[in-house]
């Protein structure tokens, strides 16, 4: 995760981090111990990552009776008391399977730091190479040992080192599909088949020779880089199996299905996510970018809402049809919200103090609205939730002990969730 970001960006107290690693709150520890025996029904996670800081005040928590509300209207959903943006009409039908957390609040207003916090659950600190939530889940679910990787990232934002497994190593590194994707055609995994001209049995022979060569070299030149290359080679071989290749083939879906998701990178990415969940990939993330709306907020958000609405609702519909909705948790979030006060360019700027997250499925999405913001949208009035609280709660619901430690790159074990975090009771 830190590869592209200079370590020098992070200036925080080592003492605070040390303290937080070794003195977890008692309540959290007791609760974690109690849930060890519960079997969690959630087997898969889909993260719909809204990159750039979405104006959640124009998606999930509108203020139509205030100047800050802007031109969007609210519409009713199937759930009394839960109203969302008029530009998310399909999602309104799914409100009973969704839960809105309207009281997210953080202190990070810089994209780099906020993205790090939202994806790893920790603020950047002390040169520690924190892993993304996807890598943590992949590790706990041991799915990486199969043909398909445990963590897939579809069309990630164009940002160096956006997504990573940090100190968990290459076994849990995300497999990226559609890097630099500019159109739907780019959403594929290239080079999955050996050369057409190659005689059939030759590839197996080549693979055997290569494995033996690498084993000999690594026996004499033990190194982190070497081991990671060998591990990736191994994963690439497994991915070349016909079953794995088929998972990524969107052509196997009907035109009607593909149109329902919308023929955009995000829409087809959601469809691909559904296929991967069907085949047991533990954690799939799909990025929808363009939410950094400092100018023309409403035009852009309306357009993006259309994409989000089709992709998200089609995903929920397909998961439900296949009986997978109760075992798949869908998280829809970005790194922060946007200013309630509309700026001079009909835009909104960064606002980490009050924003929303939408959850669906996994037994967690059940028509709840958690937390409340002020009438003008600027502050959280009830049940403030920090990002670590959300991630700790998600881990808990996945049957993962949020306090479990992993060895890190700085000779100090790091817990999955920040031990200062509090579980969000309404989600448990």
């Amino acid at each position, binding site marked *: 995760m830190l*590869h*592209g970001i*200079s*370590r*020098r*960006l*992070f*200036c*925080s*107290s*080592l003492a605070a981090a040390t303290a937080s690693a070794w003195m977890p709150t008692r309540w959290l520890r007791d609760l974690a111990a109690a849930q060890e025996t519960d079997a969690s029904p959630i087997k898969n996670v889909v993260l719909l990552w809204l990159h750039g800081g979405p104006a959640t005040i124009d998606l999930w928590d509108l203020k139509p009776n205030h100047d800050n509300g802007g031109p969007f209207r609210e519409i009713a959903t199937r759930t009394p008391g839960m109203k969302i943006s008029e530009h998310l009409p399909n999602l309104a039908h799914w409100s009973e399977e969704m839960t809105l957390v309207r009281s997210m609040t953080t202190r990070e*207003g*810089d994209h780099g730091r906020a993205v790090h916090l939202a994806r790893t659950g920790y603020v950047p600190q*002390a*040169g520690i190479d924190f892993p993304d939530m996807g890598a943590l889940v992949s590790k706990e679910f041991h799915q990486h040992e199969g043909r398909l*990787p445990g963590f897939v990232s579809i069309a990630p934002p*164009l*940002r*160096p*080192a956006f997504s*990573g497994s940090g100190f968990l190593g*290459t076994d849990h*590194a995300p*497999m*990226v599909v559609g890097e*630099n994707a500019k159109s739907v055609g780019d959403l594929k*995994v*290239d*080079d*999955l*088949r*050996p*050369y057409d001209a190659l005689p059939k049995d030759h590839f197996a*022979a*080549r693979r*055997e*020779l*290569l494995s*033996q*060569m*690498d084993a*000999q*070299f*690594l026996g*004499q*030149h*033990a*190194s*982190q*880089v*070497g081991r*990671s*290359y*060998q591990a*990736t*080679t191994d*994963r*690439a071989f497994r*991915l*070349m199996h016909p079953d794995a290749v088929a998972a990524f083939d969107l052509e196997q879906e009907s035109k009607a299905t593909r149109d329902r998701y919308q023929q955009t990178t995000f829409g087809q990415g959601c469809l691909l996510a559904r296929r991967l969940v069907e085949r047991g990939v533990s954690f799939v993330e799909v990025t929808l970018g363009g939410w950094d709306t400092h100018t023309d907020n409403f035009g852009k958000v309306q357009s993006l809402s259309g994409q989000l609405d089709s992709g998200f609702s089609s995903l929920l519909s397909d998961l439900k049809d296949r009986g997978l909705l109760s075992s798949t948790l869908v998280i829809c979030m970005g790194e922060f919200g946007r200013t309630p006060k509309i700026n001079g360019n009909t835009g909104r700027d960064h606002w980490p103090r009050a924003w929303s997250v939408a959850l669906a499925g996994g037994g967690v999405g059940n028509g709840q609205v958690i937390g409340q913001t002020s009438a003008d949208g600027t502050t959280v009035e009830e049940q403030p939730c920090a990002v670590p609280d959300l991630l700790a709660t998600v881990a808990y619901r996945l049957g993962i002990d949020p306090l479990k430690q992993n060895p890190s790159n700085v000779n100090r074990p790091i817990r999955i969730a920040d031990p200062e975090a509090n579980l969000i009771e309404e989600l448990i």
Partner: protein
Amino acid sequence: MKRTLNHAWERTSLPRFSLFAVTFLLMTLIATSLLAQTPAPSEVATRIDQQLVRLWEVEQVSPAPPTNREEFLRRVSLDLLGRIPTPAEVRQFSSENGPSRTELVAALVDNPATALHLGTFFQRLWFPQTEVDPYRYLAIDTRRWISVQLQQDRPLNEVAEAMIAVPFAAADSEQTRWGTIPKTIIEANDHLPERMAANATTSFLGVDLSCAQCHDHPFGEWSQDQFWQTAAFFAQSDSEVDSNFRLADLRLEIPDQDRTVEPVLFTGDPITFETDSHFANGREVFSRWTSLPENQYFARHTVNQVWAELFGDPLVDDLEPSSASRSIRAEMLDELAAAFAESGFRLRWLMTTLLATDAYQLSSRIDHTADPDGHFQVGAVRGLAGRQLHDSLRTAAGLPLLRDDLDSAAEIQTREDFVEQFQLGQSKAAPRSISQTLALMNGDFVEQIVSPQKSPLIESLAAAPFLTEKTCVETIYLATLGRQPDDQEWQRLESLQLVQDDFASRRQRYADLFWALVNSVEFSTNH
């Protein structure tokens, strides 16, 4: 500016002659004393090795043995030329009449390919954002221009100064001395003063103020004022050269606060050189300060990053806690930085010095599973950058390297596409993704390299009945790994039937062997 001699001079010849002689002697003395200030690379290298010995005593580790000649040649070729050596180069260096290691380094350091390879390194160090969209289009011009300067051994501080101070509008005066300086610092930062300032301080000086852009960080070193005072140097001004520029007149407004700041160096030091009417804008003033020989930041950061590239880890990491080891390494960095400045910021001097150390020549062979602890007692295993990998693949196949001025645009684009897939941050931390591995195994570019019909190497070996099986296999190993196969490898090849006395099957067998070798970890790493 000639002054005509007055008639009094012309009348007396002997006093004039002796005055000229004395002046000549004086100037020779001054020149030699100036030259003597450039420290000898071998002496500085010895000093570095001595301090590493101290470090190893403190950490209670012992150094690995030195590399053999083949390992050294491959490492140095990748680090200077940016590609692996050819079989002919390997044979020549390994022969009894081959050059010494020092002679090899001296020859390679002067090679134009080295200027291009190091030019790419500095393009990525100084402008990391040019590795990704939407700034990728700036990369080629930036690295080409830097390479041309390095080809002429221009002092690196002056190169940096020119890049930071590049004017918004092209002026005639700049064309003659520097060629057309790329406006990368402006374009890659969207013309914004705060981003240009962050780019200049972080990437050129190794000082990261960007945390302080929005607020004073409670635990950080820098205040918000310091960030914006630095950015004030980069505020656009309309002055032309030699008009009424005054540094004190520059102001920059801090967003969302009703106040402006003046340009002040983040060190708190005053500017010691004359600024009014000598510069066209604040950015030129800041870049001049950057390039001053006594400015420790540029020298230290450059040396630290070049060390990291060659040895796998920086010499000093700002975030690491204090320790005896850190103190020794900090001393080493200070000494190296001072010597680098004394040499006139000559990159060739720096490369020669670092490659002359015993430490650089340590082997990377280590058989226990614990990773070395970063004390430089074992040679590092490092990844290859996209360009290194591409050029090494072509070299291994017996193909000449692509030339921007001679080869077709389509081929150049193939290279750029391949390189784009294999971006690399720091060489030691290089992860390789599944997509990259699949590209190497099954991708179009590599298919051409290994195809029995298209690869010059395979073709020439397969079609030569006078070459024995042994010679052919050895050549393939030399071409890819820069060494001969050992006994264990010969046995493996025989048991897998890749070595046989069957001329007709040579093409396919050699293609299989070649594919495995170029996909191996050994090929893909600099070790």
